[in-house]
């Protein structure tokens, strides 16, 4: 049987991949995606802890994940629209070039 | 009410759907190779040459006058005159086409050649199965392939052909009458000549009815 450990390791690996992406990519959209990935890793943690936790019938982990998914969806929508707005202004999605605060 | 027009349209297509099983008007498709539409008499596609009698070379009406060649808008007719002469349906010695080619890949079936022909020699065919994989050979019709009998002409365009036949018969009759008169004159002349014991030149027959133009 799978142990909780394996899920946690996988989730931390996903978190690191997301982090690496968020830190290294220059395209704002991909950075946002990296952040989404980190959120997903956290969600996987919640579900794993719910599953292996002492009181799965309370569904706390599932609830947490559901809310987190909804927030992530909202975040993605707002984040991407901000990127679009920024793109319209500066004609680029390259974060290194979006270096001016002038609006 | 929104949707009314859409429902009306749906009713219309449904009527056509069921109507196609009932009414012949609504299913006009002709299942081509098995069924054919009845031949419409006036139909035309490509020209052919009419001949009288049994032998196409002997009875060819065309006298290689080259009017059609000149008048053909896309210039798809090629005629070469013969060196010698042969008697036509009226018995007159005429030249005939040594070559008569129609390139039906160029022909546009306008039937101007038919209209201008003074000898009723070229008519429009109804044979539309002309497809071939030989682009140059099969679509260049030569004299032999162009020749069709007067009976065939009568079969495909009965009204038009009978009018032509009647006219030709009339001309022939006129001609015969003339020939008879000439023969009588000649006989009389011969008699006279016999009486006069003077050799007479052989009179040539009269010009047949001539150009209708």
């Amino acid at each position, binding site marked *: 049987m799978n142990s909780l450990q394996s899920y946690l390791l996988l989730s931390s690996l996903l978190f690191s991949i997301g982090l690496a992406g968020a830190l290294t990519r220059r395209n704002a959209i991909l950075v946002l995606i990296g952040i989404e990935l980190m959120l997903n890793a956290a969600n996987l943690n919640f579900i794993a802890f719910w599953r292996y936790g002492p009181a799965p019938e309370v569904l706390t982990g599932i609830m947490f994940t559901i809310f987190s998914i909804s927030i992530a969806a909202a975040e993605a929508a707002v984040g991407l629209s901000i990127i679009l707005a920024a793109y319209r202004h500066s004609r680029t999605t390259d974060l290194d070039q979006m270096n001016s605060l002038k609006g | *009410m*929104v*949707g009314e027009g*859409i429902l009306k*349209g*749906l009713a*219309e*297509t*449904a009527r*056509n*759907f069921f109507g*196609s*099983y009932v009414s012949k008007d*609504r*299913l*006009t*498709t002709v*299942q081509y190779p098995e069924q054919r539409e009845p031949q419409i008499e006036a139909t035309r596609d490509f020209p052919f040459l009419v001949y009288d009698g049994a032998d196409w070379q002997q009875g060819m009406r065309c006298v290689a006058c080259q009017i059609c060649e000149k008048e053909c808008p896309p210039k798809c007719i090629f005629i070469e005159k013969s060196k010698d002469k042969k008697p036509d349906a009226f018995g007159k010695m005429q030249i005939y086409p040594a070559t008569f080619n129609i390139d039906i890949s160029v022909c546009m079936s306008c039937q101007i050649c038919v209209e201008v022909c003074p000898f009723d020699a070229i008519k429009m065919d109804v044979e539309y199965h002309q497809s071939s994989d030989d682009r140059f050979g099969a679509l260049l019709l030569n004299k032999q392939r162009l020749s069709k009998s007067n009976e065939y002409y009568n079969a495909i365009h009965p009204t038009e052909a009978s009018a032509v036949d009647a006219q030709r018969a009339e001309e022939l009759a006129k001609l015969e009458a003339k020939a008879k008169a000439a023969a009588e004159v000649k006989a009389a002349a011969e008699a006279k000549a016999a009486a006069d014991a003077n050799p007479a030149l052989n009179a040539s027959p009269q010009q047949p009815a001539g150009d209708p133009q």
Partner: protein
Amino acid sequence: MTHLALMTQHLDQIFVLTSHWLLSYLPIALQPLCSAILSVAAIIIAFATLFALTTLLERKGLGRMQNRYGPNRVGPCGLFQPLADGVKSLTKEDIVPIRADRAVHFMAPVLLVAASFMGYAVLPIGRNMVMVDMNAGVLFFFAIGSLMELAVFMAGWSSRSKYSLLGAMRAIAQMISYEVPLVLASVVVLMQAGSLSTVAIVNMQATYSGIWPHWFVFTPWGFAGFALFMIAATAESNRSPFDLPEGESEIIAGYYTEYSGFKFALFFLGEYIGMFATSGMAITLFLGGWSAPFSFLTWIPSYFWFFAKLLTIISVFIWIRGTLPRLRMDQLMNLAWQFMLPMTLLNLLTTGIWHFMLPGFLRWIVCSTMVIVPCILLGSGLKYKKKFQIRTYHFSQ
């Protein structure tokens, strides 16, 4: 009499029994796997055959509507036409544009077909004939449906053709917009059935009072929900009059312009399979799934009813396709957001009221009014806003 009852019952369960019989020869350990393979194979064969039949039916039906015969040359009544089409598409050259993204270009049709077939896992085709009775079956269905958008995008983007891209963009915008009313229209059933399991939903409808079944479509909210669901389903499956993504007179063939041969056929297959799946879901949710329309017809096998209903819906699709011209993009969006969305939300409210009102005549009147009046108002409001009308013309002199 009991003998007859047993026989009809056996006929009803013939596929289930056959499958059990076949599996009984296998070792216990292999049985679940083989059972799954058997069901998948059965579904693929059944619906691929239905696809073949539908293409023929569509062409013949459209033909008849247009006063033609339709295909009637290959085999008796053109019955082998789909076969000939299949052979043709298999033997055709597979052309990939030189600048296309080959991997994505290849994966798009595969993903589309796979995704469209996956939806059948939760569709109860007959009594006890469902692959997986999932607890969240309806959710699964819609989740899988959203995969198709990705496939469409992959096809349109990877072709590197302007028409493909335009088509893909249209398709995605359309599918996302109509997914909202599609899901919201089906939520009313979930509210009433109290379950996301397709089997539970069908079982709930397969009861009778007198001879009448308890199909959800025979309630005001159910009928409105069904109508809205079908409109959204038409748009989801890119059928006429919502076939903008492949509107051939505008953008050639939309996102699959650059596909040929068998991949093109796969798109065709995926689209039809998706249409059957959505129609099957409509049947499951509103038309009582495999249940017979009258209680005295229950002796006819359940799967027969499912396919009969499916074919009826397909025929309506064909009928509509033969009649209506295509909408324009902005009109399509307006319909989704200005008509479908408010109506589905209102329908949710109506369902709630229906749920809490006592059964009786009053409930019917209130709920019907709640559905019909806004529909008419919204419809004429839109018509008024657009200012389109049947015009009268004058003549000179």
